[in-house]
């Protein structure tokens, strides 16, 4: 474990150092360099933030988004056969080509696609899919199906990119920390409402409250965890609060901006964060019954929010530095159920959006006639290929083999 981390660390830092123009340091350093020097370099890189910091934002659509009613294969009769009630007719779609159209409310995604800023990745999934929300989501969170992996893939990514764990490198905007950001070295900054991310204190209490928590050896693991978390809170809370207080945007995010305006606020404030994780919360996409209106509404909100997010990034001049990856833990069963809804399925779409994204469609379109024995789409693209694409081709890590526990072919998806 230890060895693996050190190895991947030295490799990824070389790349960082190259970009930062510190090649000489790296050459003399080699793999055996004492950690503090690396630590400083990584911290310096992280602190620079703005200039070389490509940023990855992950947006989770929790509950299992019905991909077939998100990007509708109206050109395939089999779709309408499977979905006599729920199938959406072509005239209600936002048609993007001879075969596909977005759900009616997704004006935002339609525009992004037509502007060449949206990558659609077909048929994403994994072998022996789980139909449990929690299990399948854990597989996506860890990028390690059927393994019981303890740490999240975004957390491990942070460990690889910045092993010295500088503060505020990894942000998860959520009521609860996601498994995806669980990290060995970083304490992710997790908050929900920036206005509440503050210790309220009376004047006279400041001296006591500003004391850093104890750092000595502590046997009680729960206590150790609490003390570490308290330190992370002290590091981040003032920055986040100030960033949010300063943030003013004229961009219309729609009914719910999800947490994307908060991400823009932090980026604009120059936070050294490279990895953001957010979600459309509370299993919202779990549409077992009467899904038509609900699902259309959810998609409208999500699509509005992502499109506004890119516009907002443009406004602050950072659109070229950020991409957002959108996924869900599974798609839904191909045939509709009798309750005007759909049950848990398997393969699904992913999306990657951003100014630097080469818009278009990636991966093979899964067959609607050759389904698995449970009537589910058979995946054509291992979802980790998309992770690997973001890790290697966007964030610039030399490879993602150690991180993703395997070699996954990447897509040529980015301009720069």
């Amino acid at each position, binding site marked *: 474990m230890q060895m693996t981390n050190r190895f991947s660390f030295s490799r990824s830092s070389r790349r960082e150092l190259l970009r930062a123009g510190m090649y000489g340091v790296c050459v003399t350093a080699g793999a055996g360099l004492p950690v503090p020097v690396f630590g400083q370099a990584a911290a310096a890189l992280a602190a620079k933030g703005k200039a070389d910091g490509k940023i990855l934002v992950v947006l989770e659509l929790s509950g299992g988004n019905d991909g077939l009613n998100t990007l509708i294969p109206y050109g395939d009769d089999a779709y309408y056969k499977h979905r006599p009630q729920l199938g959406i007719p072509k005239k209600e779609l936002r048609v993007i080509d001879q075969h596909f159209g977005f759900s009616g409310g997704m004006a935002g995604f339609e525009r992004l696609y037509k502007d060449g800023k949206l990558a659609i990745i077909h048929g994403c999934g994994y072998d022996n899919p789980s139909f449990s929300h*929690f299990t399948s989501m854990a597989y996506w969170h860890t990028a390690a199906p059927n393994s019981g992996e303890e740490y999240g893939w975004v957390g491990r990514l942070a460990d690889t990119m910045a092993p010295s764990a500088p503060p505020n490198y990894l942000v998860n905007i959520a009521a609860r920390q996601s498994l995806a950001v669980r990290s060995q070295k970083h304490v992710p900054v997790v908050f929900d409402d920036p206005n509440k991310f503050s210790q309220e204190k009376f004047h006279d209490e400041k001296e*006591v409250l500003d004391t850093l928590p104890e750092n000595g050896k502590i046997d009680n693991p729960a*206590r150790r965890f609490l003390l570490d978390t308290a330190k992370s809170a002290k590091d981040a809370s003032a920055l986040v609060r100030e960033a949010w207080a300063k943030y003013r945007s004229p961009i219309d995010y729609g009914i719910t901006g999800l947490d994307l305006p908060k991400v823009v606020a932090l980026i604009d404030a120059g936070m050294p964060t490279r990895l953001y994780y957010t979600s459309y919360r509370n299993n919202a996409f779990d549409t077992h019954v009467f899904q038509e209106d609900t699902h259309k509404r959810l998609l409208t909100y999500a699509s509005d929010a992502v499109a506004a997010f890119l516009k907002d990034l443009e406004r602050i001049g950072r659109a070229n530095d950020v991409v957002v990856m959108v996924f869900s833990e599974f798609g839904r069963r191909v045939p509709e159920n009798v309750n005007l809804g759909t049950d848990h399925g398997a393969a699904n779409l992913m999306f990657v959006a951003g100014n630097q994204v080469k818009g278009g469609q990636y991966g093979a379109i899964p067959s609607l006639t050759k389904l698995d024995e449970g009537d589910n789409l058979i995946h054509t693209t291992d979802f980790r290929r998309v992770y690997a694409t973001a890790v290697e081709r966007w964030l610039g890590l030399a490879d993602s083999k150690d991180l993703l526990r395997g070699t996954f072919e990447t897509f040529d998806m980015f301009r720069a």
Partner: protein
Amino acid sequence: MSLFRRFAPILLAAVAASAQGSGPASWQNDLAPISAQDWNAEFAAHLLERAGFGGTPEEIQALAKLTPQQAIARIVRFEGVSNAALPPFDHSGIHDPGLEPFPPSRPAVTDMAKEKGEALGIKVKAEGNRRLQPIVDKFFYWLRASAMETNRVAYWWTNRMLTTPRPLQEKMALFWHGHFVSNEAKVRDYRKLLAQLELFQKQGTGNFRDLTVAVAQTPAMLSFLDAGVNVKGAANENFAREIMELFTMGVGNYTEKDIREAARAFTGWNYVDMKFVINKDQHDDGDKTFLGKTGRFDGVDVIDIIMQQPVTAEYIAGKLYRYFARQDLSPELQKQLGAVLRQNKYDLAPLLEKIFLSRDFYSVASVGTRIQGPVELVVTTYKKLGLKSVPGVPDFNLVTGGLGQQLFSAPTVAGWPSGQSWITPGLLLERANFGRDVLFPDISFLPPDRYTGGGEVRRVADRIRRGMDISTATKDDAKTGDMAESNMNADRDEDFNTRYGSFRGSQLAIERVKALPRDAANVNLSQMILDAKVQNTTQAVDYLIHRFMRVPPGTDAKQKLVAFLNKDLGTTDIAVAQTYMEESLRLVLHLIMSQPEYQLG
């Protein structure tokens, strides 16, 4: 109080001598019972913390005087203890028969109204503009009123947690509430949620098999898991899947085929208003093969077959253990606990007694290592403050919701993740802010059950009062650039106006739902300190730490607290400061509640 006075010097001595008491490390994983010699006030405090919502020094001493067997029997076998003094829930009277069956969405309501000429007990307006408006208003009325009444149920319940003479009854109800999950957002009927809670209170320490069957037939669960639409010929798997994955066996112990077969067995299970029904013609009466057995099973048969699996007893015993004792549980220990449950035919009380009496429960691995959930944190704090009712300021549901655990609002069917998942940097700070809100109530507090509906509703309300027409009043504030698609939709339909309905529904709900009392916490720390015969500031800090924390902060932090109190009082002598020390003591207590260790129970 007089009882405590006698013991106070002993307590203080115990604080001075050592940290909070726990058994040796060798007790870990040992289910053998502790002996009478092991038993002391620290163990009693630990038991009350876990099996209930903490104890005052008086309650701890009363329990410590018993033998461990007696103490644990008093906690677990509470049937002989009368709780007749606890009032039943006081309904506001917000429901009417026209609301049943409540349609799944606003579009479904308006479609129904267009088709049938009426919905929710209201006829479509004969002529004119917005003919469906009264129906849309009523739809939003019920959404708001049910949610508000559910918050009243939560207050009723937490007052029971605080004042019950049977703490384990409510603690187990809280466990089952997070296990057999349903939530208001989906069920949208406080009556169904209340009925389910009352079942947990009544049968929570009874028999797990009977409880599972009973819960599976509550309208709350049937509604939450869409069981009502699971019919012959097209089974809906949601209900069957979650029963196995989350409620009884855990993932990996059955196949997808088992789920489909179980779903068939549950076909026809439904509810009408508050009653469980089986629709015979929707029930699939054919043979099913489930977990290796074949027969014409119905839902109860499926539950009985699940109960025959050893893994079921282990799953549920392990989950109970994590709730009461600690997070990390060895597979061997889990097997032993499962065996206890199985030997007792799924009766829960013997397992609970075994756990609470075991050496492992009092070992260093268990004591003071549990991160309290938000509801426990808040109720325990109130208990240790000596409060007799849950304060209305701050609002209980806002506080616990902000900390990640609003009752009747579990985020997913898996309930609330526990342990370290309760804490993030943001939430740790919010926990300390809760302490401040209790000890220094906000004088600008706005009761959320009166000042309601969110910014948009208030904006519409304000504009309507100023005499605007509905279209103008409900229009968005101008924003630059393109309007988001969802904001254009909101203004389109002319049969009704959704935003007006949202405002009007809130208004109707405020009219009907009874207000919550909004008294602030009645705290008197000065008296508490004087009653404990505390003489100087160091003893005062020790006393507060011991009374309120299970794991004390480090020496450095403690010294800072004493120094703070000395400075704020201008003396180290309590007798000198006793007429003016209340505010300083509250500041110290807030600082104590701001320590990371305050989360441990």
